[in-house]
């Protein structure tokens, strides 16, 4: 009975708690997402957005609660390459000696042999992924020479090459050019049609209304969760941001 219920969800996080050395970062957070759903993760800095991502990727251990990905344990889902994480631009070492091709190839590592030597199919997957994000001419450009938008697209291509069914995107629209923004939103629609599930954190309220079927408002725990049209109300947003309006908090940049 239970496993059939699981199968309906791509992501199922139940009452998860995470603490770092006794400091609670996230508690009693529950989230269920199905195939083809796009969910916005909204909260202040330090509200637990990154922790939530870390929990879903297995980068931190839960102190309580349970996570199921495609009905499987985290360990199994990692082996299946089910989840892809697209980092914030700030989280990337731009001086690292790798180019676009190298990074996108990293998406294939999980299904390669121990030496990570690419097969023909891996090379093809990387090529296709780079084409899909419109970076073919930059395939062998070092990451340090890319613009913010191109960097973001590189990591999106890595997620595509990985063939993950779940994409976790940390601030996908922060610091990108208009062209990249348009390309990302087109990709989102394609991903949705392919049945991929997307969880994205954002500071930009307009993007939430534009793309997200669902929204998860958090402040150390879930403040509100549900359909964007119902949940994304000024009252909920204000209480998520500790009584201040998001415009005040993030200023003109958002």
């Amino acid at each position: 009975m239970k496993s059939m219920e699981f199968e309906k969800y791509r992501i199922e996080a139940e009452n998860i708690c995470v603490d770092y050395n006794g400091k609670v970062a996230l508690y009693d957070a529950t989230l269920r997402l199905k195939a083809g759903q796009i969910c916005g993760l909204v909260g202040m800095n330090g509200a637990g957005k990154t922790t939530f991502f870390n929990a879903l990727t297995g980068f931190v251990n839960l102190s309580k609660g349970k996570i199921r990905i495609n009905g499987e344990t985290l360990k199994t889902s990692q082996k299946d390459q089910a989840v892809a994480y697209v980092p914030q631009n700030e989280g990337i070492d731009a001086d690292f000696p790798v180019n676009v091709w190298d990074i996108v190839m990293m998406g294939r590592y999980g299904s390669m042999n121990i030496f990570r030597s690419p097969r023909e199919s891996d090379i093809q997957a990387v090529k296709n992924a780079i084409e899909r994000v419109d970076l073919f001419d930059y395939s062998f450009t070092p990451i340090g020479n890319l613009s913010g938008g191109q960097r973001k697209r590189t990591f999106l291509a890595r997620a595509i090459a990985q063939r993950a069914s779940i994409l976790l995107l940390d601030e996908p629209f922060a610091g990108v050019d208009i062209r990249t923004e348009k390309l990302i939103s087109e990709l989102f629609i394609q991903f949705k049609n392919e049945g991929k599930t997307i969880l994205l954190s954002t500071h930009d309220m307009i993007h939430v209304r534009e793309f997200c079927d669902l929204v998860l408002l958090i402040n150390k725990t879930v403040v509100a969760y549900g359909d964007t049209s119902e949940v994304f109300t000024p009252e909920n947003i204000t209480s998520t941001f500790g009584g201040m309006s998001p415009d005040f908090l993030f200023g003109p940049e958002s």
Partner: protein
Amino acid sequence: MDGSFLTIDINSFITEPIAHEFMRKAILISTLITSVCGLLSSFLTLKGWALMGDAVSHAVMPGVVVAYAIGVPLSIGAFVFGVGSVALIGFIKHKSRIKEDTVIGLVFTGFFALGIVLISKITSDIDLMHILYGTPLGIPLSDVKQTIFISLLVVLLLSIFRKDLMLYCFDPRHAKTIGINVSFLHYLLLTCLSLAAVVGLQAVGIVLVVAMLITPGATAYLLTDKFDELSIISVLSSIISSLIGIYLSYWLDIAPGGSIVLVQTFIFLFAFLFAPRYGIFKVKQLLSSSK
């Protein structure tokens, strides 16, 4: 010869030292050890583990003394204390509010002091100066075999897990997300570091092994944007430094360990000034041309 220093031709400059067996051994061993350290250096640079390299190479000292006293291979003692020191650093950092660089400094000086005390108390057979400054010209044969074995082991491990280690340095979260065992890679790199520290210690001593683990990687980092080239340049500059350093030490009668590292430092300075893209003169050119 006629005692005429100026007429020494390049041929005898190169061949005379290698006529001596101890010099051939010194050249072979030093070059092997510096290459291993150079290869490891390319990973440490990317991981930001320079200070960790410093710490581990000092922390292995009590291990070396204890191993000597109880008669087990020095590498085992070094390994236990090298990895142990890092575990301790991790533990203290985790359980206290002290920042990482402070914890590193605190732990490795403590271990190092323990090593000095042990040497003075347990055994008078080990010369502290040898451990500190190395004896590339007088490594005993048993150590030569051990050095070759450990060096090859480190090269093998780094080669097999090259790409995983690169990914671990670049984006450990992605590595974890796709099911790669990140803590295994962490300890693998540490193990290689401890092993390199103990072989490097014999050639140039604890003080200078740190330089061999840091400088070649830093030099290469200024010269390339490709990971493969980074490792190759790092190893090449290590080999060149080792050869030039040993020869200089023979002809000028200077300490070989110090001279190898000094050559490495000069190569770094050269890259720092003249690297095609990241040298300071290049940067100036770009700035003035953009005005």
